[in-house]
Structure formats: structure tokens, C-alpha cells
């Protein structure tokens, strides 16, 4: 299949492991990516926290640009995904707002493309059976908990993600590549998001709670699909509580034995390589 690809700002910097692994996994699974032309930032938390119209217009600029490709747009960053879905929701529900935003952006919004996250595309378009058949190195010994966070799921009528209080798609994907997924009740709790910089102590508390819960559940790593969650969980927990944190696409790349799949682990702040060596995966 062919999709538009909106990497977003984080995937070019702190979340580069997500971009690299996303591209190699997509290519190996036959998902062709066409980058959204001349994209700009979605506005993230900072736009909607301070100026509603600005937040809708910044996302609309990108949705309008993506419409040129006439393909579903895949948005790996959970924060960008959420902002796009939110903009779509408001633009479709409020005609007056749509007219105003079109004037601000200087182009018409059609609303004809579907905004999708890669968990949904891999689970629903590729399927876990096809994925399992492509595994050359099952992730035996890896015991992850899956961490979805907030922005892929909420609010449910906007995000349209399956089973938003107890999602399972990421768990099934990880199971299909040979990991022993552990259950826990913190799948959709918040990591502290953008307060990491301005109110760090609160985010340390929140990440400590998540890491303690993951350890209690018997996990030896945490897997996510959000660059903000990964950055917070990778950097903010207190010493002694940290566990390796992976993007789910890094683990798919590893299980499929894709070229370069071991490289992305080197740039994590909390080094996951000792764990991967210990279980014989690298």
C-alpha cells in the first residue's frame, strides 16, 4: 500500500530512532511512504493551550498539503496524530470555523483523506499473521509492557482508536514478533507530556509511577509509539527505576533482522543494549 507520511518535528531530532525504524519497517512490509510536501509543525500542546484558531490552522495547513497526495496520511507521532484528528473533528463539525480557517491558511480543506497512526496500519492493513511470518529472530526473552499513552486514544470520538481504556493492537503486534507481553493497568496513563521541561518534578513523579508499575508487572522493558512518551520515560524516571524503552517499530525491525536495526538502540539515553545482549538478541 501507499500512504502519505508526516514525520513531524520530533522524528527529525529526539525521535530519530522512530523515523529510521518506521521507514525500514514500512519498506520491508511493502508500505510505500510519500512525505507530505513542505510540511510544518502541527502546533502540538503549545498552540492549543494558548490559541485555539492557531492550533487548528497549523494542523489544517498540513492536512491540506497532504490532500494533494490523495492518500491516507500516516502520522507516527502520537501528538501530531492527535492534533490532526482534532483539527479534522472541528473542521468537519463547524462550518463557520472551517471558512475562517480556510481564509487563514489561504486554501480549501476537503476532508477527504484518512488520518492514521502506524499501529492501526500495521495491525489492520498488514496483519499480525503476515508480520509473524516475516520474523527471522523472535524476541524471546523480551518482556515488554505496551504503553499507548494519551494522545493516540483520547478523546475516543475524535481519535477513533480501538478499545480506548484497554487497547490491545500494540500488545498483539509485540506478541506476533515473539515478545512475552505482560499485562498492566497503566497502558493509557499520562507520562507528563510537555510539562517535562517546565515542571520537571511532576513529570519525574509520573514516570516513576509508570516504571514502578512496569517492574511490578514483571516487565523488563516498555514499548511505546510516541516520541514524547519515549523521551520522558527514557530520561525522567529516578535512578534505579529506569527500564529500557523502545519504539515498537525498532523491535519489529530487530525481529525481522532488517539492515541497520541495531543502530537505533545506540542513541537511547538509557542504554537498552545490555538487556538485548543478555537475552541474546544482539
Amino acid at each position, binding site marked *: 500500500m501507499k500512504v502519505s507520511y508526516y514525520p513531524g518535528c520530533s522524528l527529525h*531530532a529526539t525521535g530519530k530512532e522512530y523515523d529510521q525504524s518506521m521507514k525500514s519497517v514500512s519498506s520491508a512490509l511493502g508500505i510505500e511512504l510519500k512525505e507530505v510536501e513542505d510540511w510544518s*509543525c502541527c502546533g502540538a500542546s503549545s498552540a492549543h493551550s494558548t490559541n485555539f484558531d492557531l492550533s487548528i490552522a497549523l494542523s489544517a*495547513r498540513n492536512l491540506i498539503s497532504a490532500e494533494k497526495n490523495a492518500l491516507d496520511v500516516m502520522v507516527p507521532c502520537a501528538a501530531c496524530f492527535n492534533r490532526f484528528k482534532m483539527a479534522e473533528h472541528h473542521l468537519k463539525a463547524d462550518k463557520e470555523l472551517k471558512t475562517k480557517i480556510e481564509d487563514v491558511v489561504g486554501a480549501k480543506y476537503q476532508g477527504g483523506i484518512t488520518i492514521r497512526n502506524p499501529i492501526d496500519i500495521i495491525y489492520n492493513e498488514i496483519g499480525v499473521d503476515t508480520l509473524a511470518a516475516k520474523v527471522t529472530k523472535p524476541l524471546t526473552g523480551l518482556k515488554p509492557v505496551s504503553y499507548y499513552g494519551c494522545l493516540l486514544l483520547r478523546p475516543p470520538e475524535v481519535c477513533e482508536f480501538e478499545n480506548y481504556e484497554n487497547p490491545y493492537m500494540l500488545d498483539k503486534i509485540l506478541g506476533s514478533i515473539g515478545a512475552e507481553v505482560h499485562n498492566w493497568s497503566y497502558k493509557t496513563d499520562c507520562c507528563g507530556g510537555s510539562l517535562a521541561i517546565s515542571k*520537571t518534578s511532576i513529570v519525574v513523579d509520573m514516570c516513576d509511577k509508570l516504571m514502578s508499575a512496569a517492574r511490578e508487572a514483571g516487565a523488563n522493558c516498555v514499548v511505546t509509539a510516541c516520541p514524547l512518551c519515549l523521551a520522558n520515560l527514557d530520561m525522567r524516571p529516578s535512578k534505579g527505576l529506569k527500564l529500557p524503552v523502545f519504539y515498537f517499530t525498532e523491535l519489529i525491525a530487530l525481529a525481522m533482522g532488517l539492515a541497520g536495526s541495531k543502530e537505533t538502540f545506540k542513541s537511547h539515553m538509557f542504554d537498552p543494549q545490555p538487556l538485548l545482549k543478555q537475552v541474546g538478541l544482539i
Partner: protein
Amino acid sequence: MENFLVEVNKKIHGVQLQSCYHCRKCTAGCPVASYMEYNPNKVIKMIQNGKRDQVLSSKTIWLCLSCETCITRCPNQVDIARMMDVLRQMAIEEGVGAREKNVLKFHEAFLAGIKRGGRINEPMMMVEYKLKSGDLFSDAVAGVEMFMKGKLSLLSPRTKDMKSVKDIFEKTKHS
């Protein structure tokens, strides 16, 4: 003059805050309620009681993470997360400012980054935040380590059509 409740409801443009029957499900699920001086449902009550100054100058509205757990679980679909956005925007527009100053300074540094290059260049944005907040040294060690690991690129690609981005900021300035 419109009272506070009418004004907030109009800006939320959805379910009226009066639909809240104070079951406190929002507060029970809020991950930062314990750091707030007023719980989310208490803010609704305060708006109904016309406590404009107290609400707009509260820490609560700046600590809300927009995790959207409240709206997800509210039995009456009161959009509390949207309400917090509305209150923050009102605090800025009315010159009340932000009780949690660094939270707003972070947002300002972030938006200035978009205005400058269309996309966020994380090191530039962090430098701007540090200068604005005066919080110069926290995360400095982590910053150096991230740079060494190639996670902070000084020359990330920018949006080409910057006029269209700047126009968006200009045309939404007074909205």
C-alpha cells in the same frame, strides 16, 4: 456584560458546563489533580459561582496536561480539557498572565520556533526557553549527552514556504 459562565460556555462551543453534576470522575482520573489547588470539577463550580479572578490566576489551568482523560470519562460529555484551553487563552488575553510562568514561557518559546522555521528545531527552542525562564542549568548534562548521540541537530530542515506559516500566526493573532 456576559457573566463568566456564559462567556466560557460560548468559547467551549459544546456541552454546557451546567451539565456537570459533580460526580468527580474527572478529578478521580486526573493524573495531576494532586498538584492542583482546585480540582477540575471544583473549577467548574467556581466558574458557575463567578470566581473569574481566582480561576484565571490559578495554577490549575496551567498544570492541566491535556491528557483528555476527563472528557473521555465524563458521563455528561463536558469537555473539561477544552475548558482548560479556553481558560488559559482568556488568562493570556486579559493580561492575567500565567501563575505557572515557566509553562507559558515554554509554550511561547515553542511557538516562536514554529514562527521562525516552520518546524521545531529542538536545541534552538530549548535555548530560547532557557533564556526566557532563566532556568539555565537544568537538563544541561542531558542536553550535551543528547547532542553527542546525534539526537539534537542544529541544522534540521525548515519549511520552505515560510510566508504561509507567518500568515497563519498573523491572521490568528487576535482570535
